[in-house]
């Protein structure tokens, strides 16, 4: 099998496994919805800066919780089995794609629920949606690799948090800036710089993950 079909099979496998149990996806969706409710009950009404920041913080923690699991199933014998039939590049690529799909679903749900409960005017909805899309993509690319590292370090959530927070903060700063501008009604012309930097960081992150994962994988 070439790389492409390997990736396709692995993503399909992850989706099917998830669909059978629906445990991870339901728990994480419930997590998002209940966090939104907690925030709504405690804040009642907020100004647009807090509204925007709060959304990203909810998404950040939901993403960490979701991604933390990525390598939970892949232990011991199963890892050895994969190692003998597919290339490590296909595994990390498949995980990134699967996590990106999961993040799109997660952030779409979070965005809809958040907007239903917490009403706030968004000046430029298109750019806001672009920033949510790029945000989920960035979370997926960064957290997948960090989850791989933390899985090797005993898979505890503290390690995951301290390793990923410093790495995600620069992305989060740009995302919050971009989406805040969108709330204030910025046009696409103003936002190109931020979108470009986000895409560039994502490309670099994926490239480094592809280079490094083969080393991480081999025990």
């Amino acid at each position, binding site marked *: 099998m070439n790389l492409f079909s390997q990736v396709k099979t692995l993503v399909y496998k992850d989706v099917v496994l998830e669909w059978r149990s629906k445990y991870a996806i339901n728990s994480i969706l419930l997590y998002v919805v209940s966090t939104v409710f907690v925030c709504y009950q405690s804040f009642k009404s907020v100004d647009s800066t807090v509204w925007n920041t709060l959304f990203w913080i909810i998404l950040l923690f939901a993403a960490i919780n979701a991604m933390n699991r990525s390598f939970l199933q892949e232990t011991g014998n199963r890892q050895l089995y994969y190692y003998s039939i597919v290339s490590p590049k296909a595994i990390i690529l498949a995980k990134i794609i699967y996590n990106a799909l999961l993040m799109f679903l997660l952030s779409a749900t979070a965005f809809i629920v958040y907007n239903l409960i917490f009403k706030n005017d968004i000046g430029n909805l298109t750019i806001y949606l672009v920033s949510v899309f790029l945000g989920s993509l960035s979370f997926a690319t960064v957290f997948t690799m*960090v989850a791989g590292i933390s899985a*090797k370090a*005993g898979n505890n959530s503290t390690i995951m948090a*301290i390793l990923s*927070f410093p*790495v995600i903060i*620069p992305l989060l700063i740009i995302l919050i800036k971009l989406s805040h501008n969108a709330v204030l009604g910025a046009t696409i012309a103003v936002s190109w710089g931020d979108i470009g*930097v986000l895409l560039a960081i994502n490309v670099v992150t994926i490239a480094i993950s592809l280079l490094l994962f083969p080393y991480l994988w081999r025990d």
Partner: protein
Amino acid sequence: MKKIWWKILAVLMVAGSIVAGLLGPVPELPILNETIRNVYFHVPMWFTMVFLYLISVIYSIKYLNTNNRNYDLMAVEAVNTGILFCACGLLTGMLWANITWGDPWPNDPKLNGSAIATLMYLAYLVLRNALEEEQKRAKISAIYNIFAFPIMLVLLYILPKMTDSLHPGNGGNSTFGDLDMDNNIRPIFYTAVIGWILIGAWITSLRYRVRLIDDKKNSF
């Protein structure tokens, strides 16, 4: 003599830059006044820190390619020394900011960026402590080190340029070199930068050698 010439050079350069930096002529500028002399001490710290982190990444890559444990020890000692220089850079910066910007910790992207970059390297050290097995520790921490390095560069050099910053050369400000430096400052500044980088390399090599001896003592 062959091997210590650069250490003597480092001491001479740093000593020279301290004496010339405190006594030499500087341009009189508003707000900055005499604090412009801090450019000889504050800026070289950051140059040295980035240099040491770069060394650390290079040795991490070398480790992944060869599996030689000594490279891993070099990488971790470069990070340890880099954190030391980062602390010195933050301290000198806070002194300077207190006088020129009126606040030791103004909300400036470069300041926050360097603090976050420090968190990243502290996380690297915590990750090392979390792993018991030596080979695994070396390998996984090398991977995290390489993974974090480009993001640190974004944090320190790209992000501050995109937002409003108090630092010269960022957020549309003109660079320090264009505006405030004159020909009396430049030679002393470059001497200080090279001197401190050499001192950083020296500290790292000393720590590395202590580590090697420790390692030899602990192995059976």
